[in-house]
C-alpha cells in the first residue's frame, strides 16, 4: 500500500457535524457496537432471532453464514433501515441506534457498503467522493458549499488510495464492477466513519483486486472498526482475526478462524457443504 492512508482516514473526532447532534461516541468500555437479543421478523419469518454481538474498537470482524442467515438484515438494523422488533442496538455506550434515522446514524459514524455496489452512476468519480465527504450536510450549507483546497487534497488522496486517480472525471456508471466496489469503499472512508459495515466487498473482483482489498482492510483495522460480511472464504481466511458465524438469525459460533472451521456445528450448516 503506497498511498498515504493517514491523510484520509484519521479518526473523526466529533460525530456531530450533521443535522442532529447525536452526542459523542463513548467507547470507554472498549466496544464500538453492541447488539443484544435483536429479533426481526418478516411475516412470521424470523430473519434475526435473539442475535447478540459486540464489536471492539479497532477490530476487524468477519461475519459468515449461509444464505438467509440474517447477515444483511443485521446490517439493516445497525444502519436504521430496518427496525428491530425486540432487543437493543447501541453504538458505543450511549448512542441508541433504534432512535436515529439512516442519515443520523451515518453522521454518528457508521458507514455502510451495500451488497450490490451502489455509487452515483451519473456523477463523476470525483463528485461521488465529494458528496460522500464528511461535511455539514444540511440543505442551506450544501447550497453554498465550495470545495476548499484542503478538501480537494483529501479527495485527491482518496483517489490515489482507491487507485481511481486517472478516472476522476469518468462517470461512475462506466467503471468496472471491481472499480465501483473500490469507489464505494472510498466513499465510505470519505465519511470518516468509526465503524464500517462491508457487505460482500470483494464480490465480482479479480484476484488481484481482492488481494489489494485485503491489504486495504488490514491497514484500516485499528484506525476504524470493520465488520465484513463475505462469502469468499479465501478472502475471509486472509483477513480474519475473529469470525462470527450466523445461522438462522443468531450466532452459531464465534472465535478464531481455525477454531470456527473445526467446529462441528459450523461444518454441518455451512462449511461442510
Amino acid at each position: 500500500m503506497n498511498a498515504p492512508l493517514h491523510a484520509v482516514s484519521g479518526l473523526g473526532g466529533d460525530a456531530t457535524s450533521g443535522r442532529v447532534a447525536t452526542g459523542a461516541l463513548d467507547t470507554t468500555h472498549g466496544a464500538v457496537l453492541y447488539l443484544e437479543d435483536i429479533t426481526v421478523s418478516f411475516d412470521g419469518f424470523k430473519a434475526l432471532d435473539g442475535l447478540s454481538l459486540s464489536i471492539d474498537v479497532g477490530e476487524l470482524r468477519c461475519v459468515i453464514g449461509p444464505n438467509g442467515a440474517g447477515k444483511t438484515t443485521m446490517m439493516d438494523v445497525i444502519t436504521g433501515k430496518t427496525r428491530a422488533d425486540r432487543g437493543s442496538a447501541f453504538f458505543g455506550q450511549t448512542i441508541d441506534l433504534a432512535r436515529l434515522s439512516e442519515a443520523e446514524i451515518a453522521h454518528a459514524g457508521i458507514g455502510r457498503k451495500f451488497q450490490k455496489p451502489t455509487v452515483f452512476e451519473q456523477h463523476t468519480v470525483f463528485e461521488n467522493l465529494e458528496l460522500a465527504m464528511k461535511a455539514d450536510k444540511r440543505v442551506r450549507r450544501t447550497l453554498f458549499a465550495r470545495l476548499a483546497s484542503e478538501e480537494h487534497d483529501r479527495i485527491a488522496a482518496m483517489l490515489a488510495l482507491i487507485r481511481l486517480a486517472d478516472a476522476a472525471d469518468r462517470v461512475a456508471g462506466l467503471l468496472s464492477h471491481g472499480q465501483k466496489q473500490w469507489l464505494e469503499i472510498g466513499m465510505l472512508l470519505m465519511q470518516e466513519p468509526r465503524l464500517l459495515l462491508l457487505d460482500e466487498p470483494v464480490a465480482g473482483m479479480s484476484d488481484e483486486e481482492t488481494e489489494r482489498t485485503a491489504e486495504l482492510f488490514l491497514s484500516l483495522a485499528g484506525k476504524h472498526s470493520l465488520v465484513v460480511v463475505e462469502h469468499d472464504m479465501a478472502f475471509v481466511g486472509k483477513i480474519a482475526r475473529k469470525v462470527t458465524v450466523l445461522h438462522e438469525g443468531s450466532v452459531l459460533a464465534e472465535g478464531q478462524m481455525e477454531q470456527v472451521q473445526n467446529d462441528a456445528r459450523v461444518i454441518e450448516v455451512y462449511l461442510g457443504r
Partner: protein
Amino acid sequence: MNVGPISSTITRLYGPRGWIAIGVCAALLFVVVPLLNLAVPAGNPLYVSAYWVTLIGKIMCYAIVAIAMDLVWGYTGILSLGHGLFFALGGYAFGMYLMRQIGADGQYRVNMPDFMVFLDWKAFPWQWWNSDQFWWAMLLVVLVPGLLALVFGYFAFRSRIKGVYFSIITQALTFAAMLLFFRNNTGFGGNNGFTDFKRILGFPITTPVTRMVLFAITGAALIGTLLLARAIVTSKTGRVLTAIRDAEARVMFCGYNTLHYKLFVWTLSAVLCGIAGALYVPQVGIINPSEMSPANSIEIAIWVAVGGRGTLVGAIVGAFVVNGAKSFFTQAFPEYWLYVLGASFILVTLFLPQGLVGLARRWRGRVSAPAATRVASAEGAGAFRAAGS
C-alpha cells in the same frame, strides 16, 4: 504527491456562449419586441401584433412552470402530475386582487365582484380578507402554493412515497382541488372563475403599454428562474438532488437527510409555478378551475419530456415547441391536436429519451459533455423511468 489530472465539478453558471444567448434573448424581449409592437405601425410587415405578444407572454409563463417541473422531475426524479394546481393557485391569488381592482365597474355597478352579487352575498367571505392590497396578493401568490407544497410534500416524502404512487397522489390532489374550486361556496367564482379584469395597480389592463410591461416582467421572471435553477443544479445541492434521483438509499447512508432536500426543491418548484400563474392571469384575462384539470398537469410533464429532462433549457424549448404547435393545430386542425400531442409524447419517449435538446447535442457531436447532458442518458428508456424507479 502526483495524483494525475483531477478537475473539479462544474460550478459556474454559464459559459460565454450561454451568456451571449441569454443576452440576445433579453434584448429581444426587452427591446425588439416592445419596439416592433409599440413603435411600428400596424400595417408594417415588421409589426408584432397584440396576439403574438400575448401568446409569447403566455408561453413564457408555461416555460417557468416547465423549469420548475424539470427541477423536481428531471433532476430529482420526482414526477409530479399536479403542478397545474400550484400554477392555478398563484393565478387565483393574483386574480382576487384583479377582481377587486374592477371596483364598481362590473355589471351590477357595485363595489363587489359580479359573481358575489349574483349569489346575493352581502359581504366578502374570509378568503378575500385584504385582497384589495397588491402586496397581500403578492404574498399569497408565493405563500399559498408554497405552504400547500410544504405540507403535502412533508407527509408524502416522510412516508417515503415514491415513483408512480407519488405521481398518482399529485393527480388526485389537483383533481380534488378542481372539484373544490368548481363549487360556488368555495368563494372563487365557481366554474366561471375570475375574468373581465379592468385594471392592475390602477392602470387599464388592456392597453398596449400595460400589456408590454407585463410581457417584459414575464420575460425577466423567466430569465431569473432559469438562472436560479441553473445556480441550484450546479451547486453541491444540485448534485445531491441528482444523487437522490439515482440512488436515494446511498444518499441517506452518506448522511444526507433526503427529506429536507426533496422538500426544498419541491416547495421551490411550487412557488415558481405560483409566480408563473400570477403572471399568466393578467395577460390571458381569465382563471378558472379548468386550469387544475389533471390533463393540464400531465401536459406540463410532456413539455419537459419533449424538450429534454434534466437540461433546464430543454424545459423552455419544450414549452415553446409544444404550445406553439398547440396554438397552430387548435386553429388549423382543432380535432387533431390531442392525437398530435399524444403521438409526440410517445415518439419522444421511445426515440428521444433526452428530448430535443439531447437530439441537438447529439447532432453537434458533443460527446464529452458537461454535467447536464449526462442526465438520463445512460438509461435510454422511457420518460417515466426516472420517476418510476
